[in-house]
């Protein structure tokens, strides 16, 4: 077992709306990522994937609020830390975050090297610009990014190049955890491949120690990460290795998600796509029982009223369902 880089224990966060209602976007999420490992988060839009990313960073600002739970990065707890402290001591060095559409957030009036100065100076204010440039050139070379990107403006770069530049800039201080939220979904497939290749290189060369990768594209997740957890309505419904989850899902929701994967491979055409009726529950008033009960084809009356425990099985796998594994497998085989 490798060293645990990030551990999250029973994290709960909420949004407060304009009408002062609470939305429990992340509700009791626990996981850990070991050194050299990557964890994928899958789920539909609105299930709390992006909120989880923000919450794990510990960088809370309205309307997102921390409620309870622990975030431990390489043995140090950052939960409950002041956002200013987080910005100074955690972001960049401990955790790097690549938000959705990060490439469009680059200031078009600045050269790329200036972003690097900013990132490095936030943590090492005394470091001379010459050293930063040297460091950046070395890193860019290793990541197969052309050096002269450093002296370009972001508008001069293509979409894929921009995104790779953003990743290179945000990981320049070799953070322990990289949180990437849909880093490649706005790109064409070839650029996406390049982005993934680069992230893999970052991991292999040890510039990032662990990674949390968020996307709704399951085939991508399967190819990128070691483990996958599936989120539904703010909770983790299943966790396991990528292979286990894609080919042998336990929870009815993961089962439906994996069944809807469409890839250009033999066998895809014959598939019968699973249909999930209804919509995810409103997290202002989460249901008392299983959150998936209203859409679950196998739900019984109990599912609607009983709290669902997390069940662990196999090697570090877990799922959140009242039914037993055999019972579910049996049901799936009749489809």
């Amino acid at each position, binding site marked *: 077992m490798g060293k645990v880089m990030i551990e999250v224990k029973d994290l709960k966060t909420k949004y407060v709306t304009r009408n002062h209602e609470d939305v429990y976007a992340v509700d009791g999420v626990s996981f850990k990522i070991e050194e050299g490992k990557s964890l994928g988060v899958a789920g539909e839009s609105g299930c709390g994937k992006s909120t989880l990313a923000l919450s794990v960073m510990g960088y809370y600002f309205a309307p997102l609020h921390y409620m309870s739970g622990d975030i431990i990065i390489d043995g140090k707890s950052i939960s409950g830390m002041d956002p200013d402290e987080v910005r100074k001591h955690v972001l960049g060095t401990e955790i790097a975050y690549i938000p959705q559409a990060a490439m469009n957030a680059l200031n078009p009036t600045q050269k790329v090297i200036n972003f690097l100065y900013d990132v490095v100076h936030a943590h090492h204010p005394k470091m001379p610009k010459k050293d930063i440039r040297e460091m950046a050139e070395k890193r860019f070379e290793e990541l197969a990014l052309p050096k002269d990107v450093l002296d370009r403006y972001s508008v001069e770069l293509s979409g894929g190049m921009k995104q790779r530049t953003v990743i290179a800039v945000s990981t320049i201080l070799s953070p322990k955890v990289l949180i990437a939220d849909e880093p490649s979904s706005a790109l064409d497939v070839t650029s996406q*491949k390049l982005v993934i290749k680069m992230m893999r290189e970052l991991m292999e060369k040890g510039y990032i120690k662990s990674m949390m990768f968020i996307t709704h594209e399951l085939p991508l997740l399967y190819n990128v990460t070691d483990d996958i957890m599936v989120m539904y309505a703010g909770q983790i419904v299943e966790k396991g290795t990528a292979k286990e989850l894609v080919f042998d899902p336990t929870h009815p929701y993961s089962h439906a998600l994996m069944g809807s994967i469409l890839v250009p491979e*033999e066998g895809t055409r014959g598939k019968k796509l699973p249909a999930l009726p209804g919509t995810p529950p409103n997290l202002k008033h989460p249901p008392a029982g299983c959150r998936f009960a209203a859409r679950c084809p196998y739900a019984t009356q109990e599912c609607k009223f009983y709290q669902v425990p997390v069940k662990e099985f196999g090697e570090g796998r877990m799922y959140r369902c009242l039914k037993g594994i055999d019972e579910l497998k049996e049901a799936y085989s009749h489809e």
Partner: protein
Amino acid sequence: MSDEVERRAYNKDEVILSGRGVTKVFVNGKVRNTAVNHVDFDFHKGEFVTIVGESGSGKTTLSKMILGLLPITEGTIYFNGKERDIRSGHKKREYWKNIQAIFQDPFSSYNIFNKIDTVLLDCINMRGGRNLPKEKKIEMMTEACRFVNLEFKELTNKYPFELSGGQMQRLMIARIFLLKPQILLADEATSMVDASSRATILEMLLNLRNETGMTVVFITHDIGLAYYISDTVYIMEHGKFVESGPADTVILNPQAPYTKRLISDVPKIHEVWDLSSVDLELNEIKKDSAK
């Protein structure tokens, strides 16, 4: 483990919509940008066609031209064997009785000031049902909603934006169900909805085709989806069709280099996703920036 999807065979002799040398050039001052470059196509009656292309390939421009929302620079589109004539407002309206569309973003597809009833009533009126008794209209709307698994009673007097994205797209299909056009053009109709809703929408589109014999032209960037759903696939690159043919042939045995690359670059689950194949691309970028 699962049964084969029902696919109604289409008649390969009955061409409903075809194009010859269809071209669109956008002129902006002295800059001429050819978005669609001399494409030919034949869509048959009851065929499920997908046009696959990445962003910037000109697939949306082509769809707008097919719909008659954008004038064609060069080339001809034939509808039911005759050259399409949409030069007057009246003729356009006649043409639009036969071709309808579903767009990518359900949130911008509806007029937020119109209620759902208005949206559906409009379709009945367009099909000449303006003078039908009210009960008959409600019956038709209920039937259309049932087709897409929605309950009309729950929707009446609501606004489209009160629904989820998936439900809104399904309401769009209900609209098509009422309009019963001969051709449906679905432009990235599932790219903004979730995986679970996507399955439902695709199934409904297939059912629509199977039940009414409608020709469906589905435009997408997702080659896996195209493979799953369509009879015929057209692959588009830089305004041109680089390859077309039955889905099985094109996807499992691609001939054009672009199709090959596209299929190899998409992450898969059974085959290995080969990351090393992009090295060539990397070198190109290096050369590019050295200039």
